[in-house]
């Protein structure tokens, strides 16, 4: 008996018992594991619902959507392999499909916010590494089901997700300019936030996807023998749709992900979790958090607590459900921040764009504010947010995008990066990074003083 799900973005998603690859029944079994069910309790957009009340969709719904899109991309690969006279490799396609479904298992509560907290505690582990670890966990349900499907399958899935650069076209399903993740979240986030801009012409894009080899090296003036790997490129007739596709991502960053109120809440949650982590590290101080002794946050942040089991106990719901207890903490920072978050009493924002778009002016202002409020910045009574920047390819972290994540259009049969002026002056204009710098003040008087 096939299983069916209704999805607001993709409509009916069917898991067919008679799937010739055998992946659909496996996917359904994986969805049923505690590790995957945890994703119901992690929102795709973290705290964006403080700003966009409809944005309460979860990584659970997103991951299933990614699996659905991955099936479409696998069909594209089959089509293009046939066009290029190359074999379609079913075993690799199966690995890519399952990797697409499981790609977000390692997100922590509030995703990137939690990762930022860990980074500030000098913890090097990223969510991608947690994902691989959760998949490989010998005591978990995921690897049990993967091994039952095919011995050795666990390792293949984990390794595909760990690869940073492609070696074959199947990797492009989980990581490329046109990967299943992006093709789902662009549409889902737009729909659930309710923003009008940022639609993409999905069917036309899919129809015009081709497979071609690109250079993997970071762009540089020295040309040389560069490793090449196949990725998804677009036919030139899909150029307008390709531009819209990139603009959709840009728009979401501009309007949703970098919304100043959302970023403010993220910083406040970061402050709260750092304060809890600080107390959790000292057994005698745990009670000052207001949390019961065996609370999952205390277990995780406690000595030697960063295990897969403890990590899997953390999610958005756990943190938001703990705000009441945290608001009664003996630690005044924890109590105050939790109370504010519970009642949406946000810090007051100073957006440096108020002083004009000129970067020189903004950087000078920031320097002045940083000096004037040095002590309060240290004690987190003032939170500086100067790590959000956006270009057509920039990641939230700000690093340059890898070559296979840049969009290539076939120009005279050769893949060319789309931002070349000859191809798209529109995209070229958006390559430079634009910085969003905000400062959040606990005390409105401080904000007003900084504004002067």
């Amino acid at each position: 008996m096939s299983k069916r799900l209704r999805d607001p973005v993709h409509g009916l998603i069917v898991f067919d018992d008679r799937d010739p690859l055998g992946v659909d029944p496996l996917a359904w079994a994986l969805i049923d594991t505690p590790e995957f069910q945890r994703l119901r309790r992690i929102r795709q957009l973290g705290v964006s619902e403080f700003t966009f009340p409809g944005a309460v969709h979860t990584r659970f719904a997103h991951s299933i959507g990614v699996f659905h899109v991955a099936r479409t991309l696998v069909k594209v690969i089959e089509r293009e392999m046939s066009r290029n006279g190359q074999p379609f490799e079913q075993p690799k396609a199966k690995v890519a499909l399952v990797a697409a479904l499981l790609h977000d298992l390692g997100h922590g509560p509030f995703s990137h916010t939690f990762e930022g907290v860990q980074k500030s505690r000098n913890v090097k582990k990223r969510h991608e590494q947690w994902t691989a670890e959760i998949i490989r966990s010998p005591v978990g349900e995921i690897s049990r089901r993967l091994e039952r499907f095919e011995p050795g399958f666990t390792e293949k899935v984990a390794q595909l997700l760990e690869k940073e650069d492609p070696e074959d076209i199947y990797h492009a399903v989980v990581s490329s300019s046109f990967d299943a993740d992006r093709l789902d979240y662009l549409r889902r986030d737009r729909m659930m936030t309710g923003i009008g801009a940022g639609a993409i012409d999905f069917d036309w894009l899919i129809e015009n996807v081709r497979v071609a080899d690109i250079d993997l090296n970071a762009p540089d003036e020295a040309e040389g023998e560069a490793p090449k790997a196949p990725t998804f490129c677009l036919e030139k007739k899909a150029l307008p749709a390709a531009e819209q596709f990139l603009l959709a991502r840009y728009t979401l960053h501009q309007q949703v992900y970098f919304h100043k109120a959302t970023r403010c809440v993220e910083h406040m949650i970061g402050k709260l979790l750092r304060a809890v982590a600080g107390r959790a590290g000292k057994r005698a101080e745990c009670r000052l958090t207001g949390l019961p002794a065996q609370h999952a946050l205390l277990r995780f942040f406690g000595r030697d607590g960063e295990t897969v089991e403890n990590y899997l106990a953390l999610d958005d719901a756990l943190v938001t459900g703990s705000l009441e207890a945290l608001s009664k903490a003996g630690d005044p920072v924890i109590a105050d921040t939790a109370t504010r978050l519970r009642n949406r009493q946000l810090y007051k924002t100073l957006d440096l764009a108020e002083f004009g778009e000129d970067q020189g002016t903004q950087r000078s202002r920031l320097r002045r504010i940083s000096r004037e409020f040095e002590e309060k910045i240290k004690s987190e009574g003032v939170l500086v947010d100067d790590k959000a920047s956006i270009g057509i390819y920039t990641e939230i972290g700000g690093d340059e995008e890898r070559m296979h994540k840049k969009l290539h259009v076939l120009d005279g049969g050769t893949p060319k990066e789309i931002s070349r002026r000859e191809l798209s002056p529109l995209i070229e204009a958006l390559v430079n990074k634009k910085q969003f710098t905000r400062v959040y003040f606990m005390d409105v008087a401080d904000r007003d003083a900084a504004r002067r």
Partner: protein
Amino acid sequence: MANEPEDRVADIVIAAGGRLVSRVRLQKVAYLLDKLGAKSGFGFAYHHYGPYSRDLDNAVLDAEAFGKIEETYDRRQSDGARYSVFEAITGNRPHKYSYLANDRLQERAKELSAANVTVLELAATANWLLEEERVSDWKTEIVRRKGLKTRNGRLEEAVQLLSHLGLEPAKL
């Protein structure tokens, strides 16, 4: 002596010969210089091209905003992919180094700035895996993460570079 973030960026570009190509290269040079004893104060985290510092990225913004460097762009012939070219703005005045006052570090900055960008990426990543993530089997891990980039002798070149710098993986 001024030692603001923008001064540290200017130090690297000037030590490189007044011109340094690509943001990825700038990041890896700054990371490796820190490993050689320079104290940039920039925090690094692991990103797609290995160790990456958002602080340094912001310092580049400062350096541009405060007239210490200029950033222009060029494109790779083969596929048109864009890269940055940083040039120091000294106004014919001798540069007073801030955090790279040491001659040896200046020399290293020049050498590293001339290295192949993928070799730098691999060298910085290998160092990161060993020193920061404490991955004992760093070779397997770097091949797992970087795949094709480690082939054609690139990984060996990266190890050679680290050895030349006195940061050879075997000793770490």
